[in-house]
């Protein structure tokens, strides 16, 4: 490339007279060009690497949450111990507490260890009993109360191992770290290995992670996402039911009917700004208006849904207006030309044609609402909830958790097992988001018309 910007007087100074040989200046400029291009490439690479790193770190930490170590032990359910009244009435059987079931289980485990001839030096009975999750007796009790016919039989019970034993098979706990850990001893880990050799201990898919409620601080192995998924689903229903009609109505008015005046301008500026207000401010709004003023209950999906609706509305109105705008005026003119009213032309022709675009925007808005955490923290969704909410509509007022808040909740707990659970919960959240976004893309690809 010749240097035309140099003045003509300078031209004779050129070292080489041929255009085909590059002089130092051209070489420098070409090098600068290559460098600049390289920076751009590096920036993109960096951004993509960050994405990959983020996903890799979450997935490698979270995938183990979907697997759980269980100990299979034959348990003899002694009717004399578990049903003192002897009439198989679940109400009376409920008097046998988890402590009783805990004894049954630890006896069964001890018997199983002895039967298989496992001898581990320095292992006492308490340590053997400590292999099992504190949640295991409660699960056994629930099984028995649901099916009293089990009494008197010997069943094979799949008892959850404690979080530490579970962590041993996921690389979180080692023999070395066990010597320093007050919650687990190396002997217990040796016992776990021995049990595994005999086929009594195995690690398999953990469906309880998706269905069980949250568990207390000491039992990460039993903590599940059941209530959180349900609570998030309730909130999404509220958001959908409220924001779809309101968002579409507002968009139609602003795009098709609103006169161009100051008042309309004010509304439009307002919507643009609301879309950029930090989400935590909506949380404060929810706390002040819905909880303090209107007296709605804390941690209820209805409040979460209302707050998320207010937050999502502007984010839905913007793409909806774009979709309406994309429908060509000829469609409206044609409808008006054959005698339709303005309202009919919009509801019968423009809206159906814009529907795929509107739905796409709606789904993306919902996906954003699903991942939102900060406003929910302020309206009390962090509460520890063990009871599943009832079916809607009354269940909307029951306390529940939400997926992203559950993640936050688990990261605040001490046991390292909860970090794995939190990452696992993120994977569940990301899968939901992926499904929603894929749906949006499919909708757009298949139904959106280019005019």
């Amino acid at each position, binding site marked *: 490339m010749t240097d035309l910007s140099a003045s003509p007087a300078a031209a004779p100074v050129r070292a080489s007279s041929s255009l085909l040989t590059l002089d130092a200046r051209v070489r420098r400029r070409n090098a600068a060009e290559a460098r600049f291009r390289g920076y751009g490439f590096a920036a993109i690479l960096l*951004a993509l690497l960050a994405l990959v790193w983020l996903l890799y770190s979450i997935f490698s930490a979270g995938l183990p949450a979907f697997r759980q170590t269980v100990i299979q032990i034959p348990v003899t359910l002694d009717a004399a111990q578990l049903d003192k009244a002897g009439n198989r009435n679940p109400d009376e059987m409920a008097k046998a507490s988890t402590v009783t079931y805990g004894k049954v289980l630890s006896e069964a485990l001890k018997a199983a260890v002895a039967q298989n001839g496992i001898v581990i030096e320095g292992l006492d009975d308490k340590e053997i009993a400590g292999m099992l999750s504190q949640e295991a007796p409660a699960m056994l009790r629930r099984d028995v109360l649901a099916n009293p016919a089990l009494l008197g039989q010997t069943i094979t019970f799949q008892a959850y191992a404690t979080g530490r034993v579970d962590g041993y098979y996921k690389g979180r706990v080692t023999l070395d770290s066990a010597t320093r850990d007050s919650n687990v001893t190396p002997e217990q880990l040796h016992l776990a290995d021995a049990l595994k050799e005999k086929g009594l201990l195995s690690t398999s898919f953990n469906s309880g992670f998706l269905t069980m409620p949250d568990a207390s601080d000491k039992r990460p192995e039993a903590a599940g996402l059941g209530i959180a998924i349900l609570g998030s689903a309730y909130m999404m229903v509220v958001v959908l039911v409220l924001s779809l009609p309101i968002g579409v*109505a507002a968009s139609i008015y602003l795009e098709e009917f609103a006169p161009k005046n100051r008042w309309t301008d004010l509304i439009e500026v307002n919507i643009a700004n609301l879309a950029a207000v930090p989400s935590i401010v909506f949380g404060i709004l929810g706390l002040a208006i819905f909880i303090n003023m209107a007296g709605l209950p804390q941690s209820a999906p209805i409040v979460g849904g209302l707050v998320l609706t207010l937050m999502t509305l502007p984010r839905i109105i913007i793409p909806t207006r774009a979709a309406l705008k994309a429908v060509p005026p000829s469609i409206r003119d044609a409808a008006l030309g054959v005698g339709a009213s303005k309202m009919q032309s919009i509801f019968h022709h423009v809206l159906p044609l814009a529907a795929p675009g509107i739905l796409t925007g709606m789904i993306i808005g919902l996906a954003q609402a699903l991942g939102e955490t900060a406003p929910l923290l302020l309206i009390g969704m962090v509460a520890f909830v063990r009871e599943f909410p009832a079916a809607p509509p009354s269940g909307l007022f029951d306390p529940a958790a939400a997926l992203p808040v559950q993640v936050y909740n688990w990261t605040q707990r001490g046991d390292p097992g909860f970090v794995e659970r939190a990452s696992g919960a993120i994977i569940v959240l990301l899968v939901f988001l992926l499904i929603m976004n894929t749906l949006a893309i499919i909708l757009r690809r298949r139904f959106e018309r280019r005019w």
Partner: protein
Amino acid sequence: MSIGILSSILLALAAAGYFIGRARAVSAAGGDTRKLHSLAGFYGQSVALFTAVPAFLLMAAWLFIQPILIESRVSGQLQQTLAPDASLSLVMADVRRLANAIDSIGTADEVAALSPEALTARLGEQGVAMGGDMSVAQVAAANEYRLLSNQSRTGMTVATIALALAGLAFALRRIRIDFRARNVTEQFVMVLMIAASLIAVLTTAGIVVSLLFETIHFFKLYPASDFFLSTTWSPKFGGGSDLGIWPLLWGTLYVSLIALIVAVPVGLMSAIYLAEYASPRVRTWVKPAIEILAGIPTIVYGLFALITVGPLLRDYFALPLGLGNSSSSVMTAGLVMGIMVIPFVSSLSDDIINAVPQSLRDGSLGLGATPSETVRQVVLPAALPGIVGAILLAASRAIGETMIVVMGAGAAAKLSLNPFEAMTTVTVKIVSQLTGDTEFASPETLVAFALGLTLFVITLALNILALWIVRRYREQYE
């Protein structure tokens, strides 16, 4: 009657109204719908709208106002009997809990006959935990509360159904052959649409009013000058706390600054590469891939900061350099937030660079400039205002971000320059002052509203400025 059943009744009435109205219009025309002013369906629609909409509005308003009225009445009675140091809001919480639990214990008279200790025990059996034993006045208040709630609920049911029926009758009476049903229906729908578009304005008003109201309340308890000028933040829930905003503001700005230092070069350079160099194929794949970063919820970034970036920075930078031993630090939060903000910078910059007219590029290239010289000396100066707008939007986003800093930046309010130290931000403190059981009378809680207002004002100013710049820039080339 529960809200679900009531809503279904209203919907059923509306549906019935549609068919009755339609049939009435048809029969008024003697079966020849051509004689009607509008299509028969419009007559039905007008009836359905007049039946359902006012009734639903009444129900919503009633649900919103009922607790406020009952609360003020019951607490007014209770206040006279209360010990001067007791907190009314905590007592009211107990009263509400008891009122909800009364039905599971027995009748109101039985409850009133129980001694306070026995009552607490009975409630415990039902799984209702109380703040303490209830006084006789509280039990009476709870009974009153329950009675009023039940009365009000019955009143609401009667009133909404009556209103729905009145609407139905009114709309049916208007049906004649020459009734302009289409115009009426469309007018009605129009009003509804205007109301829907006003919700955004109402939301903003709600935000401003609730923040201002509580902030004024806060400044009555705590001097505004201390809030804006003090450089220490040490809330003590016993009273006598220092609530200066500066350490929080400093933390916020520091984290956002680091985020922008990460995001602006990366975002801008990738936007330039995508706009000027990349082939269409690369563009179609890479652009959405970078935008995935914007679609990932912030809680994911928070966890990433907490379990990966924080420990990494501590072990490989902070500890060897002797700069600190905390895994949550300004650097952690800033770096992760920077990753999050990249797509905000890159997408908007990309659009803006693409909006620079091709003729400017062609002119520059025609004069012999290399593509990079064109970008640096022609495209970027032309796009600069828009890019500044994009960066301001990213900054406002970073300042308002909550979860990353809650999980990555720490909770210690400090004025320090060391980026490897844990510091805290405005949003973190809003969360920590408002989560858990809060009482809305202490300055330690109310300060969160003042912080929220500060945050709202800062981000709003940044957004308005940014949108104004971007809009002006767009107009320049359109």
